[in-house]
């Protein structure tokens, strides 16, 4: 456990000056502020629609969630998984890392865990900022009725789902970035996968859940159907695509360990 903790602290220390780390913080800020700005500057139009509070929240968080879940999340995961591994490829530090008096598995697990934590931070900020900016909008445009519904449960559940749904993609990309030191291969495969995921997810293909890249899209589609429920917060978290995502994550995580132990040989 100590090995794992030490390695994790070191991962933070190493990458605190990299884009992958800062993107986890900057992305939610930029996107949430853009959406909030849209709702602020276009408040007349939105007010004309006379949404009930719950639908107003859905419109608003759907705007952030849509852009984010379908495109930005997969691409962030692709880039971040690359970056976390590339630190060692670029500097040729794998062997030094594995020559430290630390458990080999902990070193690898810490790297993976660090990537998971970054996604968590990113999505947590998305949820928190969506909530905060919603209330800020209420202050700036008092005619809005954001204050008449508490979306926190929906936000937490959606983003938890999205977080779990992203683990499958993360594991694939993590493995690809572990195998190859260059950016193009993992990026290319990830790009094709993401496009495929969006299409199969949206078309509603029966086996779309088997493709990890489609998981965020599937989660977003379920958000659309959640709107129709009498209590929109009543949707289940652990659905088929979430289980699949977790299975992918677990299996690929284990395979990755064997790859990484071979990697130090080179």
């Amino acid at each position, binding site marked *: 456990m100590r090995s794992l903790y030490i390695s994790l602290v070191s991962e933070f220390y190493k990458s605190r000056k990299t884009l992958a780390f800062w993107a986890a913080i900057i992305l939610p800020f930029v996107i949430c502020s853009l959406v909030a700005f849209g709702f602020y500057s276009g408040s007349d139009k939105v007010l004309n629609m006379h949404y009930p509070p719950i639908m107003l929240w859905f419109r608003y968080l759907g705007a952030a969630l849509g852009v984010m879940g379908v495109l930005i999340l997969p691409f962030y995961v692709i880039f971040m998984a690359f970056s976390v591994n590339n630190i060692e490829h670029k500097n*040729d530090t794998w062997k030094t890392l594995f020559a430290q008096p630390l458990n080999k598995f902990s070193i690898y697990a810490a790297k993976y865990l660090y990537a998971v934590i970054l996604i968590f931070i990113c999505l947590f900020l998305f949820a928190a900022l969506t909530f905060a900016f919603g209330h800020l909008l209420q202050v700036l445009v008092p005619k809005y009725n954001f204050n008449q519904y508490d979306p926190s449960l929906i936000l937490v559940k959606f983003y938890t789902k999205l977080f779990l749904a992203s683990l499958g993609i993360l594991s694939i990309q993590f493995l690809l970035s572990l195998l190859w030191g260059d950016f193009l291969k993992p990026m290319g495969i990830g790009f094709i996968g993401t496009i495929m995921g969006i299409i199969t997810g949206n078309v509603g293909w029966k086996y779309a859940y088997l493709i990890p890249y489609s998981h965020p899209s599937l989660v977003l589609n379920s958000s659309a159907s959640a709107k129709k429920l009498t209590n929109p917060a009543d949707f289940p978290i652990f659905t088929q695509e979430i289980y699949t995502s977790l299975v992918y994550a677990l299996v690929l995580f284990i395979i990755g360990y064997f790859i990484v132990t071979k990697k130090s040989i080179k």
Partner: protein
Amino acid sequence: MGNYAIETVGLNFNFGNQAIVKDLSLQVPKGSIYGFLGPNGAGKTTTIKILLNLLKSPADQVFIFGKEINHNRIATLKRVGALVEQPAIYGHLTGKENLINRCLLLGIKKTKADEMLALVGLTEAANKKSTKYSLGMKQRLGIALALVSDPELLLLDEPTNGLDPNGIIEVRNLMIELATKHKKTILVSSHLLAEIERTATHVGIINKGKLLFQGTINQLHLLSKPMLEIEVNNISNATAFLTQAGYEILETTDKKITVPFTSPQDSGALNTLLVQNGFTVSSLYLQKKDLENLFLDITKNN
């Protein structure tokens, strides 16, 4: 076994079908500076990687401080510091941050980073990004990283690679200081004998995965006995004559005869003897193989 920092017993290592290390029996005494010599591709780096357990050795062939490495990986690595190939430095971090990161991994106080920077003379460049370091500075940072944990055993793979003469002297002095003052054992690999001739107490010469020589630096010197080369007419008769007169002939070519050199007086007597017996001696000279040639001979002939 107790006196060796490193001992390998008939170590074999293959990459697929290709044997990289063959029946290697290294014996590195505690407190020594062991020069691990060999041409490029001889298996030096592979051996060092095995000593770090980066490559898994067969059971019971590698012992560090008397302990089998595969069963005592973490305990062993705690006592070892290493610089393998190019120094492994995170380019986007400063020199100091690189050291702090290593301190984090080893669970050592961060103040140690400054100490190490001072030791290798990088204090002024501490806050400079390490991508902007010169090759020599990187190499020194690599050595500092290897020393952070205050290891008893240091494995340095070509540590003077890319250093200017000043840097080479600095590293050499640092090694001597570490071994004499701090009682560390150092295994330093190189493909240049001259480079470690002055620092090493022990030498191992490896080529094509085989250990060709192992011993103290003095034993290596003894191998290069001085010889007397005599150019004389009628070589075959002269050879027969000298053998009869009780001389040991080391080598005969079509131009010269080589005998062991004992003293200038003896050389003179030998010359007189040849001349008095009707041979024409055209030249007579003392030949001493320097270690560099010896090294080349040892690695070439095998």
